[in-house]
C-alpha cells in the first residue's frame, strides 16, 4: 500500500506541475474546452485513486470539483469567475494535501467545507488564502524515464554477449588461471547485474491486485451489495510501465462491474441468482500478450439503455439500433456516456470506459467485451508482452531449440515412464497420464520439421491453455531460463505458433512457442463447460455460513468454535503451561497468554492448543485433537445460561456444542484489554447475514465489541427492520431500515454509516 501511495503522490505532483499551465490558461479563457477537460481528468483521476487508497478528504474535494466540472461540461453551468476560482482553490488544496501526506504532516481541514461550498452555484468568490508552504519531504524514490531503463537493459544484453564472446575465446587458448578467476568473477557480477536491471522494469501484477479485495469489499458495502472476489495469476510479471497504465482502467472496470453490473441482493434473488455477486480478476500470459480478465455475474450491458442515452444525446437512434449486437456492446466506450441514470459516488459518471480504452490502446493493448444479458460481463484487457521477462522451459525438436512459457506447462513426463500410455486413435494420438486422457501434439509435426524421433526417448510436456490441456511431444527438455521476450516480425507472428523471439545467453536467437496457437493449429477443440463449473461452485457457496472448527475437547466431547477466531492450532510442550498469578497460563512465542481448559492439564508431554484471537487479545484453549472444519447450520439451540458454551448445533446428525468465544474472552482475556471497556453491541435482524458481513467489521473497526448472541447483555442493540422488539426492554436500541428514504420513524438507513456510528456513540455515551 505504501508503494501505491508513493506512486500516487509522485504522479499527482507531476500532473499538478504539468497542469499549472493549463490552469492559468483556463483562468484566462474559461470557455476553453480542452483545458476544462484536462482539469476534469485530473480531478477524476485523483478521485479514483483516493477511493483506492482510502484518502477520504482528497476524495471529497476531488469529487466535489468533478461534480462542478461535469456540470460545466454538460453546459449546465457557466464557467464564471467565481466557479473558476473555486475549482482552482480546490486543485491547490489537493496539491497541499498531497504534500502533507508525503511529509507525513497533518494539515487541518478547516476551510475545506468552505472550499466545497464555494463550488455551489451563486456562492461568493473564494478568497485565496495564502497557505503556509507545506514542507516537502525528501523523496524516497526516483522516477525514471522508461527509455533510460530500456537503454540500460539493452546495454546489459550487449555486455552479456560480450562476456560470452570473451569466455568462448579464452576457452580456446591457454589461459592463466588468474585470468579465468577474474572472468568468473565478472560473470557472476554480470549475472547479478542483469537480474537487477531486469527487475527494475518488472513487477508482479500482484502490486496491482493486492489492493483489490479491499476495494471490492468497500465498494460493494457502500452500495449495499455483497460481492466475493476471486483473484488468479497474481504472480504474472509485467512491465512496470504496463502495470501503471493498467491501474486506473482496472479500478474503473471493477467499480463499474460492482455498481452497474452486479445487481442488488433483492434483484439477484428475483433473477434466481445467488445473492452474492461474483467477481473474478485473473491475469495470464497468452501468446505474446498478457491478458487481464475481469468477469462478473451481473446483468451484463444494458444495450437498450445505452442506445436510449445516446439517442437522447442527439445520435441517430435508427443507425444505433441497426448495429450488430457486438457493436452495441461497444457503445459503452462512447465518450461522455453514463450507463447508469443516477450518478453515484462509486463509478462516477461513466467517463470510465472511454478513458479505459484509450489508456489501454496507448500501450498497444486492446479491450474486449463479452456481455451475456442477465448473466454477466467479461472484460478482457490484452496488453503486449513487450519486454516482459517470462520464465521458460527450453525444449528441443528436430535439433532446434524452442522456449515454452513455464506458466503454460503443468508437468513434464518422459514418454517411457510406466505411468504414461500413448495410443493411436484413428489419425490422432492420445496420451493417458494418470487417468487423464490428453490429445497429443507432436511439436516437430506442427512446425513441419523432420520428426524422426525414437518414441522411447521423447518427453511429453503437459501444456495447459485457457480451455484445456494437451500433451506436447518434444525430443528433449533442456533447460529452464528466464528470458526477455520481444515480439517477432509480423511474418513470423503470422504463422500463429510463435509468441515472440528472444536472445538467450547463448547468443543464438530462439523462438517462444505460443501453446494456445499450437493447439489451434493442431485442430484441438476443448469443450469448456463453464456452466457446469458455475453450478458446482454455486452449490458450494449456497451452503455458505459460518465455518467452524470441530474438535474433541479434553473431556471427550465434540465441540466446535467459529473458525474466524481461531488463529492457529499448535502443539506445545507441557512445561510451557503453568499455573501462574491465579490462572492457567501458556508461554508461547515469547509471550504469556491465558489458557482455558476443560479439565486439569497433566499427564501428557505435549498438548494441542487452539490459539484464539479477537483482534486485540489472545487466549489459548486446550483440546484433545482437531477433527474437522464444517459449516455451521443456521439453527443454533442457545444454552440456558451464559457460559463457555453458546449453544448446540447439529452437525452430521450429531449434536455438537458450540463454544462462545465472546464469553471465553470476557472470562479469560487479559483485564484492561479493550474488550473490557468497549461497549458491547448486539446485532439482530437481517436473515441473510447482512449484519454479520457488513455491520460487524465496521463496528469492530470503530471500537465496539459485537455479538449476535441475543442472550448476551449488550450495551446497545442494533436492530434491522423492526427486529428490535424482543430486546427493547434491556438495552437502548438503534434501529436500521433496509429501505432508503421513508425517514421519520427514527430509524437510520442501513448504509448511512455516519448516522449509524453517530447514533451508536450517543447511546453508548448516555448509558
Amino acid at each position, binding site marked *: 500500500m505504501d508503494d501505491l501511495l508513493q506512486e500516487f503522490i509522485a504522479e499527482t505532483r507531476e500532473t499538478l506541475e504539468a497542469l499549472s499551465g493549463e490552469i492559468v490558461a483556463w483562468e484566462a479563457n474559461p470557455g476553453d474546452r480542452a483545458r476544462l477537460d484536462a482539469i476534469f481528468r485530473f480531478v477524476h483521476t485523483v478521485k479514483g485513486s483516493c477511493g483506492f487508497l482510502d484518502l477520504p478528504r482528497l476524495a471529497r474535494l476531488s469529487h466535489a470539483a468533478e461534480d462542478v466540472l461535469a456540470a460545466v461540461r454538460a453546459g449546465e453551468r457557466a464557467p464564471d469567475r467565481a466557479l473558476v476560482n473555486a475549482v482552482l482553490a480546490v486543485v491547490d488544496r489537493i496539491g497541499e494535501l498531497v504534500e502533507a501526506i508525503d511529509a507525513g504532516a497533518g494539515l487541518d481541514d478547516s476551510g475545506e467545507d468552505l472550499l466545497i461550498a464555494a463550488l455551489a452555484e451563486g456562492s461568493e468568490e473564494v478568497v485565496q488564502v495564502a497557505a503556509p508552504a507545506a514542507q516537502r519531504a525528501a523523496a524516497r524514490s526516483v522516477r525514471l524515464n522508461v527509455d533510460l531503463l530500456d537503454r540500460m537493459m*539493452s*546495454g546489459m*544484453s*550487449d555486455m*552479456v*554477449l560480450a562476456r560470452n564472446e570473451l569466455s568462448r575465446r579464452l576457452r580456446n587458448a591457454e589461459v592463466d588461471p588468474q585470468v579465468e578467476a577474474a572472468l568468473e568473477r565478472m560473470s557472476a557480477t554480470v549475472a547479478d547485474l542483469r537480474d537487477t536491471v531486469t527487475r527494475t522494469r518488472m513487477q508482479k501484477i500482484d502490486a496491482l491486485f493486492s489492493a483489490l479485495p479491499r476495494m471490492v469489499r468497500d465498494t460493494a458495502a457502500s452500495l449495499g451489495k455483497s460481492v466475493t472476489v476471486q483473484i488468479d495469476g497474481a504472480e504474472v510479471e509485467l512491465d512496470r510501465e504496463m502495470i501503471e497504465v493498467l491501474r486506473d482502467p482496472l479500478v474503473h472496470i471493477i467499480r463499474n462491474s460492482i455498481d452497474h453490473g452486479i445487481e442488488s441482493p433483492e434483484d439477484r434473488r428475483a433473477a434466481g441468482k445467488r445473492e452474492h455477486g461474483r467477481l473474478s480478476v485473473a491475469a495470464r500470459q497468452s501468446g505474446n500478450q498478457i491478458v487481464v480478465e475481469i468477469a462478473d455475474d451481473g446483468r451484463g450491458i444494458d444495450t437498450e439503455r445505452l442506445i436510449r442515452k445516446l439517442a437522447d444525446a442527439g445520435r441517430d437512434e435508427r443507425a444505433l439500433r441497426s448495429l450488430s449486437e457486438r457493436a452495441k456492446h461497444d457503445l459503452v466506450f462512447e465518450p461522455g456516456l453514463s450507463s447508469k441514470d443516477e450518478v453515484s459516488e462509486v463509478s462516477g459518471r461513466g467517463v470510465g470506459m472511454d478513458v479505459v480504452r484509450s489508456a489501454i490502446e496507448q500501450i498497444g493493448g486492446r479491450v474486449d467485451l463479452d456481455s451475456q444479458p442477465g448473466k454477466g460481463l467479461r472484460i478482457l484487457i490484452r496488453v503486449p508482452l513487450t519486454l516482459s521477462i517470462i520464465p521458460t522451459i527450453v525444449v528441443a525438436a528436430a535439433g*532446434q531449440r524452442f522456449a515454452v512459457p513455464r506458466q503454460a506447462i503443468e508437468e513434464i513426463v518422459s514418454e517411457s515412464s510406466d505411468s504414461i500410455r500413448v495410443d493411436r486413435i484413428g489419425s490422432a494420438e492420445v496420451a493417458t497420464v494418470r487417468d487423464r486422457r490428453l490429445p497429443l501434439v507432436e511439436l516437430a509435426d506442427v*512446425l*513441419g*520439421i523432420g520428426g524422426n524421433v525414437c518414441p522411447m526417448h521423447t518427453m511429453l510436456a503437459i501444456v495447459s491453455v485457457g480451455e484445456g490441456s494437451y500433451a506436447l511431444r518434444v525430443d528433449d527438455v533442456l533447460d529452464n531460463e528466464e528470458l526477455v521476450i*520481444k*515480439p*517477432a*516480425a*509480423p*511474418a*513470423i*507472428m*503470422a*504463422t500463429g*505458433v*510463435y509468441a515472440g*523471439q*528472444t*536472445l538467450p545467453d547463448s*547468443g*543464438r*536467437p*530462439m*523462438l517462444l512457442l505460443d501453446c494456445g496457437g499450437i493447439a489451434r493449429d493442431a485442430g484441438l477443440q476443448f469443450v469448456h463447460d463453464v456452466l457446469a463449473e458455475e453450478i458446482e461452485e454455486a452449490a458450494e457457496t449456497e451452503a455458505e455460513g459460518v465455518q467452524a472448527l470441530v474438535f474433541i475437547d479434553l473431556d471427550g466431547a465434540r465441540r466446535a468454535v467459529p473458525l474466524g477466531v481461531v488463529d492457529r492450532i499448535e502443539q506445545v510442550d507441557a512445561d510451557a503451561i503453568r499455573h501462574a498469578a491465579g490462572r492457567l497460563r501458556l508461554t508461547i512465542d515469547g509471550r504469556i497468554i491465558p489458557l482455558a481448559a476443560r479439565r486439569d492439564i497433566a499427564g501428557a508431554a505435549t498438548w494441542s492448543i487452539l490459539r484464539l484471537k479477537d483482534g486485540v487479545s489472545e487466549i489459548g484453549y486446550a483440546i484433545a485433537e482437531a477433527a474437522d472444519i464444517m459449516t455451521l447450520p443456521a439453527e443454533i439451540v442457545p444454552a440456558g445460561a451464559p457460559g463457555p458454551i453458546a449453544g448446540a448445533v447439529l452437525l452430521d446428525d450429531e449434536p455438537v456444542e458450540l463454544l462462545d468465544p465472546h464469553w471465553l474472552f470476557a472470562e479469560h482475556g487479559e483485564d484492561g484489554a479493550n474488550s473490557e471497556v468497549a461497549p458491547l453491541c448486539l446485532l439482530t435482524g437481517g436473515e441473510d447475514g447482512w449484519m454479520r458481513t457488513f455491520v460487524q467489521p465496521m463496528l469492530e473497526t470503530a471500537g465496539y465489541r459485537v455479538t449476535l448472541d441475543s442472550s448476551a447483555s449488550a450495551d446497545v442493540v442494533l436492530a434491522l427492520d423492526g427486529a428490535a422488539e424482543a430486546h427493547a426492554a434491556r438495552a437502548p436500541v438503534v434501529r436500521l431500515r433496509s429501505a432508503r428514504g421513508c425517514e421519520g420513524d427514527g430509524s437510520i438507513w442501513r448504509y448511512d454509516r455516519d448516522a449509524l456510528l453517530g447514533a451508536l456513540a450517543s447511546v453508548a455515551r448516555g448509558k
Partner: protein
Amino acid sequence: MMDRLFLIAHVAGQAVAIGADQVESVVDIGTIVAVPRAGGHVRGLAALRSRVVTVIDTVAALGMTGGQDASRAVITRVDGHHYALLVDALDDVAPFVLQPLASGVPLSEAWQRAGIGLVERDGEPILAIDLTALVPASPAQAA
C-alpha cells in the same frame, strides 16, 4: 534535382541502388536460426549485438529462386522490427540523381513492386529499390 545518397549492392548477380536513409547498417550475418513455417523469404533469425533481426532472403523476395549463401546483409528497420536483407556484395555509397523508370521496361511483378526508379553510374543504369517492399507484411497489413 537533388542528389541523394545511395548504397550500391549486388543482389542476384546485378547491381541495385538502395536509398541510404533506409540503411541502418551493413553487417556480416553469423549463424541463422531457422523459423519453421515462416514464409518463403524469411531465412530465419540472427543475433546482431543484443538485437534479434529477421533475415530476409532478398533473392527470393525478388521472386527468383533463392538459396543464396550470402552472409553480408543490409539492416533496415520497418515498423519497429529490424530486418537483415542478404546481399552478395556491396560496392559503395555515393550521391546519385533518382530518375523515373523508363517506361516499357518489362519488370517482373516482384521487381516492379520494389523498384522506385533508376540511377545512372558511369552510364550504367541501376535499379533503385525500396527495401520495405521486400519485407513480408503481416496478413493484416497486406489486407
